[in-house]
């Protein structure tokens, strides 16, 4: 039905654009990771030093592991918050389901920066939370670990990503035909058994999608650490950012970026595979 001219016309511009502004830049980044910096200037000398450095120098390994831990914590917490919420909305909210759904979505439209900043003001030594504690005479001195710590980063990112995790889980739960739940009850299973045997298995694709999203984006986040992470909450993306900034070493930065990229793509593939496995008509 569509002529070759039509098909060429629609395919060419996006292909060219994507090739030029996505593929080429990624390739450039990949190339950079094999180059080096001598005397403050970029040298196109092909080598593997950057990767070696990355995996042998303890400071980098440590930051990478911390980042993984933070990303895992964020994912776990978001799931613990987002799944029950989605379940409640889907199965127990009744007529208010639509309204509540909108209420969960609204924060997604609110600036990331705004929300991160809000946490900064809440968690600080002179922040709202400490003020609140002192007001209630629960503490006499500010609680320090609240801000400028991995805890704060996890808290902030959980806050950001809970709605993101909620969305695909909610969609998956909504797709479960209600007669299946009734059939389960009909056959003698109570709410708990029905959830474990029917609802949870059928919601796994949504769960995987949300979890992957939260983990991958947390992994590469550099803004949260800058806002609320302090020195102890630095993540791998901050390292990259400084290597492209003050600590001028683009090749090393590129190498780390390539690693993040590979981890991300691997996780996406894995997740996709698992989602397919757990998709039932």
């Amino acid at each position, binding site marked *: 039905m569509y002529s070759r001219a039509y098909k060429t016309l629609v*395919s060419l511009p996006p292909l060219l654009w994507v090739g030029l502004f*996505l593929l080429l830049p990624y390739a450039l980044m990949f190339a950079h990771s094999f180059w080096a910096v001598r005397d403050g200037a970029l040298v196109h000398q092909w080598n593997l030093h950057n990767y070696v450095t990355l995996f042998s120098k303890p400071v980098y390994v440590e930051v990478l592991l911390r980042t993984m831990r933070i990303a895992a914590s964020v994912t776990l917490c978001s799931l613990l918050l987002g799944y*029950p919420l989605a379940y*409640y909305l889907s199965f127990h909210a*009744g007529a208010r389901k639509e309204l509540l759904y909108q209420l969960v979505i609204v924060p997604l439209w609110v600036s990331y*920066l*705004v929300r991160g*900043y809000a946490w900064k003001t809440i968690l600080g030594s002179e*922040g*709202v939370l400490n003020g609140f504690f002192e007001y209630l005479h629960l503490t006499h001195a500010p609680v320090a670990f609240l801000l400028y710590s991995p805890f704060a980063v996890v808290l902030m990112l959980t806050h950001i990503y809970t709605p993101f995790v909620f969305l695909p889980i909610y969609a998956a739960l909504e797709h479960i035909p209600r007669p299946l739940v009734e059939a389960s009850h009909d056959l003698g299973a109570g709410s708990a058994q029905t959830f474990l045997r029917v609802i949870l298995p059928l919601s796994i694709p949504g769960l995987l999608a949300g979890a992957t999203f939260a983990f991958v984006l947390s992994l590469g986040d550099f803004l949260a650490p800058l806002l609320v992470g302090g020195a102890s909450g630095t993540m791998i993306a901050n390292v990259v950012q400084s290597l492209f900034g003050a600590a001028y070493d683009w090749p090393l930065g590129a190498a780390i970026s390539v690693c993040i990229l590979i981890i991300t793509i691997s996780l996406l593939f894995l997740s996709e595979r698992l989602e397919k496995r757990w998709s039932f008509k």
Partner: protein
Amino acid sequence: MSGHAPTRRAPLLAIYSALVFIFIYLPVVVLILYSFNRDGVGGFPPRHLTLDWYRLLFADAPIWDAVVNSLIVAAGSVALSLTLGLLAALALDRATFPGKALFRRLVLLPLILPGIITGLSLLMFVVFAGAQLSLLTVFLGHGTALISVATTELFAGLQKMDRAQEEASLDLGATPWQTFWRVTLPNLKLSLIAAGLLIFTLSMDEIAVTFFLIGRDNTLPLEIWGRLRRGITPEINAVSTLIFAVSVALIVIWYRVRTRGLGADAQELLERL
């Protein structure tokens, strides 16, 4: 037919859900509250409510310059992303070519990749091409990254569309070009609007990619970011509150638009969004 199944009570779950809601909304509420606080962003409880910070905000020229910059970039991004996204969606829906699978993944990649990757790779590209960082490079970054949003949305819209309509148009004598304008595009109206709104919002709020592509002119998020490094004042609360208000207003408008006589289409739009 009879009605739906009754929803059973689940009190513990309801309480837990309420707590999650509180967690989600607490920072925003605090933010708004303290934008009216004379004594700054900390401490508890806020006393001495005032509008001074808002007054300060409205006199703050750099912020409004940044707002204008953001709007320009956002508008441009919407135009670029929608155009390329539409073409990409059409290509994915109708054409076969070598490397199509790779293309599809590549287009969707910026959506799921951390912004720093996209930002840095484009930075390397800009430097490689010997160009200067400016609003143009920011626009480039946003536009490229957000094509994925447009493509996803428009592709879904194309899949839902009744193919027979285009066939009917051709059958009645319209050329493919005419069919595109008279049949295909109108059918994609909802998807275009949804994608456009989303791209606009994402562009206005974009930091990660922008961080590496910014020149001398700041976008709003980066202007705020710069202020944050210097010191926190409730003026930032004030501008944040305004951003929040505008976001909510946009949602309400979007909600009205889609529920006004759009019926079944609105439901699916809601689902997609």
